[in-house]
């Protein structure tokens, strides 16, 4: 699959810039005024001089409410290839715009884009993915007036399989989707895991370089929290890079094992193999500040309250897997 992606990337890159795409309307004051008003920009210069704010450059060539699929557009073409390979989600990571001059009221602009490079597969906090970089240039006639380097991460949403169908196609221009709220997704996985804890066919966590320390900890009866090796920020779920300072060094500390219930669910249905329902699964805010999901063991669901104090316990599933869980403190 990597070979297919690289070959497609090389083919699209070698094809060079796509066709010029003209903006729907000329640069015009009504759209400039709408933009200034919405953004809250009170700079009088634009209306006085009849020029557009430079950050509006891309606005003039946005595809609008009913975008036409343009297979010749390099980013659209590369996105289609990655969609097919299961990398169906997209998030923009970088946008670098250079303005050679300001655009004037009445000017007509068009844009041409080309694929610069495709790098991957990379492991990221959002999932495995490929970074796709394109360059776009805006022209008035033959004059280049602005340029942009734009980078997106096309990633496989966690939990999907390698052959997931392309369920959602991202429009190429300014394409972005939410970074899938990683912590909530991770909570969901942990929820299923805890619910199946004592079943012989328990859903197992994927142990990676980033999470191995955590599972080694539970096996040893320790609740470990990842700590940034740069700024000391604590984070959970564990990941490769610090969101505060960007450092990729990390160590961990051993938590005290106490916390408060931040939120919880009572799972009554559907049935879980090997378990008698209901069971309670809580999101616990540890004394150290991070939040972690686990089953609340031996609790009457009617006794569980947000804010209740809990103590960690460990459920040994087999020789390889020990799950953290919680017990209410009196």
């Amino acid at each position, binding site marked *: 699959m990597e070979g297919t992606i690289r070959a497609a990337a090389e083919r699209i890159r070698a094809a060079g810039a796509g066709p010029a795409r003209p903006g729907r309307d000329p640069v015009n004051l009504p*759209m400039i005024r709408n933009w200034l008003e919405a953004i809250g920009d009170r700079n009088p210069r634009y209306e006085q001089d009849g020029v557009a704010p430079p950050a509006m450059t891309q606005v003039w060539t*946005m595809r609008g409410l009913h975008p036409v699929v343009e297979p010749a557009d390099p980013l659209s073409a590369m996105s289609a290839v990655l969609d097919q390979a299961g990398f169906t989600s997209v998030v923009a990571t970088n946008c670098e715009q250079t*303005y050679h001059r300001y655009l004037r009221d009445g000017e007509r602009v068009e844009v041409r884009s080309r694929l610069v490079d495709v790098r991957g597969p990379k492991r990221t906090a959002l999932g495995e993915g490929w970074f796709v970089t394109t360059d776009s240039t805006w022209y008035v006639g033959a004059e280049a007036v602005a340029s942009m380097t734009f980078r997106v991460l096309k990633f496989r949403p966690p939990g999907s399989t390698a052959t997931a169908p392309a369920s959602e196609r991202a429009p190429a221009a300014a394409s972005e989707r939410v970074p899938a709220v990683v912590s909530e997704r991770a909570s969901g996985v942990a929820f299923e895991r805890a619910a199946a804890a004592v079943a012989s066919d328990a859903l197992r966590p994927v142990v990676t370089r980033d999470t191995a320390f955590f599972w080694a900890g539970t096996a040893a009866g320790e609740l470990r929290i990842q700590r940034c090796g740069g700024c000391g920020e604590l984070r959970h779920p564990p990941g490769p890079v610090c969101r505060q300072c960007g450092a990729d060094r990390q160590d961990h500390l051993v938590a005290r094992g106490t916390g408060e219930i931040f939120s919880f669910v009572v799972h009554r249905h559907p049935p879980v193999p090997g378990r008698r329902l209901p069971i309670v699964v809580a999101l616990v805010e540890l004394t150290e500040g991070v939040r972690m999901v686990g089953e609340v063991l031996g609790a009457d669901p009617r006794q569980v309250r947000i804010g209740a104090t809990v103590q960690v316990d460990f459920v040994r599933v087999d020789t390889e897997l020990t799950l953290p869980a919680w017990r209410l403190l009196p």
Partner: protein
Amino acid sequence: MSVAVGIVLPELRIPVTPTFVISTAVATRDFQDVHHDRDQAVRRGSKDIFLNILTTTGLVQRYVTDWAGATAMVHSVAIRLGAPCYAYDTLVLTGQVTQASSTGCVVAVVGRVTGGDHVTGQVEVGRLP
């Protein structure tokens, strides 16, 4: 421009109301549903509607020209995107001059939201020709 490296720009706090998210998305001609339809945004795994990139670029540009004044000429805006800026959050923009010369300067800008850095970047600004 008589500016010196290290000058700190005044902080700008923007209450990110749904009206703000939607009006800026439409003003930048971005009609993707995650910028105006909360039900769809939630269905796609987001907690609410959120700012689009063209707006973030615009806010970074505006933040610097608010400080630099009407005679400023923006040469480039380079941003790196991080945590989404959701409706009902507050976007706090801060900035500092990192390079300065007789013809212009570079301002490093950070836009923070509850979830961390929404945007970090550099704006290169000079004087009107």
